[in-house]
């Protein structure tokens, strides 16, 4: 037992340790603040360390190796800059992202979807990078697609650098199409054809289903929005009120209900969210589902064991056979508001190197080909003008995928359409609608749409 005489000494020691600890913390905090010096040139910042989001996970071994190789090359060329990769999968998880924004704990360079800008600004977490980005710091900056730049800009202030754009199509399993006696070069374009083909594929049995759809994790509402856009409807009207309770949405939901309960071409297991359908597709158990083409080369092939030659993409289904549009979105890398000017400069330099230079980083097609990963998927262009032409030329030189597998998707030239206000809340509401259609044999589609429209209008009124 400690004698009473020793207690004060012990307390003094504890207090000294505490004070010293606080002192160190304070010094650490103050050093990060005091290093802010907006005027310092990029070359003269001294040692800088930045954490960067979206390092590919270990489950995507080849992409991870490529990313790490980029980091090593970059650090060798810029010995004063140290990159700490942050690998989370998926790169952005809604719940974690929201919590990080609230706590201010995002990486120095963090991922956001185009639709996240308002949330990021509401949280006050993005640094203004307007003065840091130009054609010198980001070669080809003025060629970046205007729609992508609009998504990362508020007023005239730039908050992020866009790194990818998507529109959605209908991913098909060509192998199952062939086994079912269907023509994989002609993916279905109307909902009636989707129903017919899904039924033929499901008839193969052995746990194979023709069509898959999400109805959880806000992904059901997300897909519903894209399907309504493609079918000529709109989610929110010009008056700012929900406008989806109309014929286009009814037709989409009727088709899903038909496939699930009449044709039996959809699995009885629903409540699926992002990642579930990719696994089914990779395992050869699913004929069709809606996604951006990058699902094939980012998830199904490298992670879920699919063979790239087994997949193709058609346009989004619609009643007319010509999609009126597609939900469009994209990825961007933003900069933490706590970043010092030196960190922003280093971050911009790294993002330009690894994400926005044709022939380098994510656009190093020769390396992607050498690593056995597919090259040449059709996607909306990140750039316009000369930079776009250069990138397309490099992509064509290393092309590995058969463009015929995507011809109908490319030919459809889907018009990208933005996401609704308070998108995640709207999607969450519509998840329930999708799930009811997919799990209730007696679902009253008209009533479900009416209820969902009322609920979304309440959300939109509260969001304003």
């Amino acid at each position, binding site marked *: 037992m400690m004698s009473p005489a020793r207690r004060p000494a012990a307390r003094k020691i504890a207090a000294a340790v505490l004070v010293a600890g606080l002192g160190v913390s304070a010094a650490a905090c103050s050093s990060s603040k005091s290093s802010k010096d907006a005027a310092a040139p990029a070359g003269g910042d001294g040692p800088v360390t930045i954490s960067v989001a979206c390092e590919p996970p270990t489950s995507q071994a080849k992409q991870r190796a490529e990313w790490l190789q980029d980091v090593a090359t970059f650090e060798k060329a810029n010995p004063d800059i140290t990159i700490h990769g942050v690998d989370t999968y998926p790169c952005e998880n809604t719940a974690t992202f929201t919590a990080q924004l609230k706590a201010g704990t995002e990486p120095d360079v963090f991922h956001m979807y185009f639709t996240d800008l308002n949330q990021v600004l509401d949280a006050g977490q993005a640094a203004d990078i307007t003065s840091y980005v130009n054609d010198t710091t980001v070669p080809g900056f003025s060629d970046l697609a205007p729609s992508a730049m609009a998504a990362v800009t508020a007023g005239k202030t730039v908050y992020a650098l866009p790194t990818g754009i998507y529109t959605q199509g209908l991913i098909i399993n060509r192998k199952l199409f062939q086994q079912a006696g269907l023509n994989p070069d002609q993916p279905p374009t109307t909902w009636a054809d989707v129903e017919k083909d899904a039924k033929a594929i499901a008839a193969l049995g052995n746990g194979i289903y023709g069509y898959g759809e999400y109805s959880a994790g806000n992904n059901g509402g997300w897909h519903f929005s894209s399907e309504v856009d493609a079918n000529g409807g709109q989610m929110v009207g010009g008056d700012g009120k929900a406008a989806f309770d109309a014929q286009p949405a009814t037709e989409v939901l009727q088709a899903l209900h038909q496939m699930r309960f009449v044709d039996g071409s959809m699995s009885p297991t629903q*409540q699926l969210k992002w990642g579930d359908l990719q696994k089914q597709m990779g395992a050869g158990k699913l004929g069709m589902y809606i996604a951006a083409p990058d699902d094939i080369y980012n998830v199904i092939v490298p992670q879920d064991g699919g063979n790239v030659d087994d997949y193709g993409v058609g346009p989004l289904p619609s009643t007319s056979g010509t999609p009126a549009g597609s939900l469009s979105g994209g990825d961007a890398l933003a900069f933490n508001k706590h970043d010092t000017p030196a960190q922003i400069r280093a971050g911009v330099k790294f993002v330009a190197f690894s994400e926005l230079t044709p022939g380098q980083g994510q656009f190093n097609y020769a390396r992607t080909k050498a690593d056995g990963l597919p090259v040449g998927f059709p996607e909306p262009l990140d750039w316009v003008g000369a930079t776009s032409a250069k990138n397309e030329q490099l992509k064509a030189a290393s092309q590995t995928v058969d463009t015929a597998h995507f011809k109908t998707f490319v030919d459809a030239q889907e018009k990208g359409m933005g996401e609704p206000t308070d998108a995640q809340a709207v999607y969450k509401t519509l*998840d329930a609608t999708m799930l009811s259609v997919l799990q209730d044999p007696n679902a009253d589609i008209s009533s479900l749409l009416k209820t969902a429209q009322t609920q979304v209008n*309440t959300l939109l009124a509260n969001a304003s």
Partner: protein
Amino acid sequence: MAEQVLSRPGRRDPGRARGGSGGRPAAGPDGGPNGRFLRTLRRHLAAHGFLIGAVLCFAMFSWYPMIREIIMSFQQTHRDKITRQPKTTWAGLQNYTRIIHDPTFAQAWKNTVEFSLLALLIGFAVPFVTAIILNELRHARGYLRILVYLPVMLPPASALLLFQYFYDPNYGLFDHLLRMLHLPTSQFVQSSSSALVSVTVASTWMNMGGTTLIYLAALQNIPGELYEAAELDGAGILGRIRHVTIPQTRLILSMMLMLQIVGTMQLFIEPFILTNGGAGPNNSTVSVVNLIYQYAFNLSGSSNYNSASALGVLLMLVLGVFSAGYLWLSRDRD
């Protein structure tokens, strides 16, 4: 003399123990309030020292978040249109109005109350009956006790992923067994009519081990003579349970009842994992805590933390009123 008595550690001043000053002088170098405070502090220094860690933990991780939650429930955060910076303002009862008008609000409370009732029917009765059976067994009691307790050792997420597989209507174990027995299959968590019951069954399986052991401990404390006397009076098994077991375990039963209600009202992880997010078909499994989570983390609009806080405060009030009522009733009875 009084000073000497007071200065001795471990002795209490009878007058002060009753809350009075015992006629001691009101002021003075040693006898004044400051002196008394210092002496009391010195006497309890070790106890206070030991308490500091716990108090700090509670303050940081329980009390501060509670107070912050209450404050946030009356605030809203918006981006200033001119400065483009987030701005927090007092919003009165707007967050409460907003959540009450959410169509999911009533459904979440309905589901939570329904789950609590189901959990009382299944989750309260099953462990009690299991404990009685275990108590009556003469052989292999230890092994069976371990078997009953095993699910508690599984991390909840793993146990629920296991049930997600069991419940799968496509390749799940339960439907497979039902098909083998030529019985009608079920959609389990995929159907609005069976989702909540399925969640309750999984929850009971996960949690009954601990409760069963507590009941078993209570049962083993019942003197055997009481059962012998009941048997001599002609009581059968049900009679012994009714007239001996239940009255003898009343205190434990009522305490577990309160804990179970408080626990079940905070239903979250079971529907969250079993239904891939917590809502379930037709929102049939969305609970109040699931809704709090959705407000806070799944929605992109502004002020969602404030809505989540408002709903959290409402839940806290409901549970607070229930717990206070229970404590008041049980104090009277005991």
